[in-house]
């Protein structure tokens, strides 16, 4: 079972590398799709069944497709711009590695400050279906952020429509 998780993680990281480095944006966005799938799998293994589903639906089904559409709408497929001319990469690379290392170290140190769960508890957590719990939480203690998000989404939608309107 854990081998599958490892596989998912490898898939995620590898395709993320391609996303970051592939000169062609079209390819990069296709591989982003794989990254999203890998992350969805990781969610599943972390006991987040609902989230995994949402990840697939929203990212894989929504965002990635949207991006692909945008690429096709804006650029002729073989446009020279499509094979993305990169900015200077060394300093950003160094910075990115530093960020990654520091982030990991910081999080790692945080791990020690919280008590670990017992294996039984982990097992129980993984096996509980989350959809109902999330639903109750969203309409209970998280109602206000939830409403805020809905308004944000509405606003974003209106804004996007207005921005993309024909002249």
């Amino acid at each position, binding site marked *: 079972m854990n081998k599958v998780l490892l596989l998912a993680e490898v898939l995620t990281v590898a395709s993320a590398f391609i996303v970051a480095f592939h000169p062609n*944006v079209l390819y990069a966005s296709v591989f982003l799709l794989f990254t999203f799938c890998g992350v969805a799998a990781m*969610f599943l293994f972390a006991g*987040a069944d609902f989230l995994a589903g949402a990840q697939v639906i929203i990212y894989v089904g929504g965002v990635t497709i*949207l991006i692909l559409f945008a690429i096709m709408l804006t650029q002729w497929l073989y446009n020279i711009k*499509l094979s993305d001319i990169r900015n200077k990469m060394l300093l950003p690379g160094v910075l990115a590695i530093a*960020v990654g290392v520091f982030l990991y170290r910081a999080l790692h140190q945080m791990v020690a400050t919280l008590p670990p769960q017992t294996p039984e508890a982990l097992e129980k957590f993984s096996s509980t279906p989350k959809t109902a719990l999330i639903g109750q939480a969203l309409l209970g203690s998280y109602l206000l952020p939830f409403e805020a998000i809905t308004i944000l989404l509405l606003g974003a939608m209106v804004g996007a429509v207005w921005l993309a309107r024909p002249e």
Partner: protein
Amino acid sequence: MNHLIQFSSSLQGYLAVGAILFALGIFCVMTRKNAIGILLGIELILNAAGINFVAFSKFRTGLIDGQIVALFIMLIAAAEAAVALAVILRFYRLKQTIDADEASIMRN
């Protein structure tokens, strides 16, 4: 190999993946000239954040709060993608390019 499998299913494994994704996202955002490429990087960063939340939710708190935050991130990401793409489309119509360096009318 076992060691790796062990690591991958631990909290640290999740954190490592999150950190790598985050770093790659940052890198992507910093280096891509293409506006859509930058958007890709942002998606990576957001996913990295989501992974961390979910991981802490399972391995440390045992509550679903982390998952709810991850859900919110996802929703915001969707909204952001929609708006960003609309902006890009508009920008493309304006300048016939989506080179982010061209988007410098904010300069002084």
